[in-house]
């Protein structure tokens, strides 16, 4: 293709996946990898059956069970039933659908089972330059590899199963430049929480974000996934980070990584945005000025540096913002103007597709080692996959957590979405490494403070919201 204009990473992936583009109509976009789980797929498979259709590319389709699987050790291997008959029926339906349509399934009990956005990269299915979709909004996670990855609804799951394509309007692009180096104790989670606090939960609607800058380039692959994972919480269609040596090293040797490795890497090296490529919007964040972040409200944009007081509605000039803050603080039962530091905590959840990878567990274990979980606090540690769980156990991380008094669990979405019985009781406060603090998200009436694994581990030890740099 003779292109003279400099192109972004997004432009390159988009343009190489357009199957057809008729005037005035959305593009027909080819999908390289379709990830499937139990909750958003049954109606799509049912639709195929009703129309007498096949899965067009079973080899580009991979399924796992994660949202409603039990995580209590001993349950996951099938010795104990899942949370209820409905969840069991839904899991059974996925098994049946995958068998009937020839889709590879990492079922409950499989050595490779795990959260869909954890195992995709872990097994090497996720690769730079791909288009990736899943009936799950946190599909944006895979953008960390320089893949265009976004969440879709169940109707679109059916479209991709049947045709390997989607009808899509071209989104806009947003460059998020995180300059400088973050300080000790400040993590990828804090970067993304700070961004969402700055631009708001609708700040990137209609856009694909590309994250760049020194603070992003120096992140590990796992940390990049944490950043891209929460792109959707700013409303973005997807999040992207240009692939580099860190990406290639992480993928090398993974089971489903390309066989023709050298030529794949050569193709991937051409993906990063060209110098001078234009974006629709640019946002700059000073990485060096960031502190550990925590949310106080009922959406991920309601976040502050952990040392700051909870904002006061009467200081808001916009009446809509004032009303939203007032509603959130009533739900959270928090006093405006008071610091969050020292606020008591009932539960700490370390897990989810945002922060359940080995690096997250290691970082939290380093805080916990030689200490005890505060009396009365429940600390759940839920690895993102069976492979991560095995590796953590080989390193003795499970012993550190267990000896401190934490619960060491099997892999799954667990208390991030509270579909499997792992949930908060009404009124309980949790510090959670997950991605959503919406009302009732972690259990009806439960109250969530989103934070990094370091901040979560510190809260587990003290039983209060604690600055991890002070522990």
């Amino acid at each position, binding site marked *: 293709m003779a292109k003279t204009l400099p192109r972004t990473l997004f432009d390159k992936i988009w343009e190489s996946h357009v*199957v*057809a583009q008729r005037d*005035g109509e*959305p593009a*027909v976009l*080819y999908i390289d990898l379709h990830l499937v789980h139990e*909750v*958003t797929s*049954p*109606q799509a498979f*049912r*639709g195929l059956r009703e129309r007498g259709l096949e899965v067009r590319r079973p080899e580009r389709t991979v399924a796992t069970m994660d*949202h*409603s699987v039990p995580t209590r050790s001993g349950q996951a291997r099938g010795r104990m039933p899942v949370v*209820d008959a*409905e*969840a069991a*029926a*839904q899991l059974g339906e996925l098994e049946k659908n995958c068998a009937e349509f020839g889709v590879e399934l990492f079922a409950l009990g499989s050595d490779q089972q795990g959260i869909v956005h954890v195992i995709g990269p872990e097994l090497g299915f996720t690769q730079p330059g791909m288009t990736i979709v899943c*009936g*799950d*909004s946190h599909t944006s996670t895979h953008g960390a590899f320089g893949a265009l990855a976004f*969440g*879709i*609804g*169940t*109707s*679109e799951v*059916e*479209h991709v199963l*049947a*045709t*390997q*394509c989607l*009808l899509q*309007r071209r*989104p806009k692009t947003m460059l998020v430049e995180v300059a400088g180096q973050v300080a000790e104790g400040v993590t990828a989670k804090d970067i993304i929480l700070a961004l969402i606090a700055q631009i708001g*939960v*609708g700040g990137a*609607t209609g856009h694909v974000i590309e994250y760049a800058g020194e603070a992003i380039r120096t992140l590990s692959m796992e940390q990049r996934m944490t950043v891209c994972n929460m792109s*959707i*919480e700013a*409303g973005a*269609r997807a999040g992207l980070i240009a692939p580099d040596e860190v990406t290639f090293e992480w993928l090398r040797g993974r089971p489903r990584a390309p066989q023709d490795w050298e030529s794949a890497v050569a193709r991937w090296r051409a993906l990063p945005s060209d110098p001078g490529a234009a974006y629709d919007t640019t946002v700059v964040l000073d990485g060096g000025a960031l502190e550990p972040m925590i949310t106080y409200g009922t*959406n991920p*944009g309601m976040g502050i540096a952990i040392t700051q007081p909870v904002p006061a509605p009467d200081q808001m000039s916009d009446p*809509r913002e004032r*009303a*939203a803050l007032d*509603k959130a603080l009533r739900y959270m039962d928090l006093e405006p103007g008071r610091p969050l530091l020292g606020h008591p905590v009932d539960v700490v959840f370390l897990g989810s597709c945002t922060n359940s990878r080995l690096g997250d567990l290691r970082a939290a274990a380093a805080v916990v080692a030689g200490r005890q979980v505060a009396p009365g606090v429940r600390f759940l540690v839920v690895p993102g996959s069976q492979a991560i769980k095995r590796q953590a156990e080989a390193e003795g991380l499970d012993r550190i957590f267990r000896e401190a008094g934490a619960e060491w669990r099997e892999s799954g979405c667990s208390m991030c*979405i*509270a*579909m499997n019985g792992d949930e908060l009781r*009404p009124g309980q406060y949790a510090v959670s490494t997950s991605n*959503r603090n*919406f*009302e*009732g998200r972690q259990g*009806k*009436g439960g109250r969530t403070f989103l934070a990094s694994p370091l901040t979560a581990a510190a809260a587990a030890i003290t039983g209060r919201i604690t600055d991890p740099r002070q522990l």
Partner: protein
Amino acid sequence: MTFTTIQSRAVLLPHDDIDTDQIIPARFLKVTSREGLGVHLFQDWRYESGGTEKADFPLNAPGAREAKVLIAGHNFGCGSSREHAPWALCDFGFRAVVAGSFADIFRSNALKNGLLPVALGKDEHAALCAARQADPALEVTVDLERQVVAWRGQEPIRFPVDPFARRCLLEGVDELGYLLSLQREIEAYEASR
């Protein structure tokens, strides 16, 4: 399901950033069909813990059952990609949501279920909220053919809608059927890689 014009009462839920976990909490996603979710629409805002309806919640007000239009704030439907959200809204009886803006995935999911997302400018949205506040029986008209929304005392206001989605709704075009008709193009693309 085709869509042309609706005229009905409206339910007013003017909060911004209403997420799909509020529209339909995750514990109701363990279903394998699309039907019957309306009873759980806004479950945790709508019912007391014992299951009785909260009298002061707008969905429980007299006339709400007949409403086909929901008026919400900005960034409606943010969060999870669950299509159960538009399924629940449709099952309750809504055919259009008029809001300041919509989250991308929700908008896409809504259009695939014959639920029309209508985004109004800030002032027009505020005017509609005020008119509905003043008159709970206010009839709102949403005309997809002309792409306008109107109510008593208000000149019709034009709203944006994707022209392809508009055609699909007006003519009852099935998107999957459309994609399946592109079989040759898809094969050619696959062969070219």
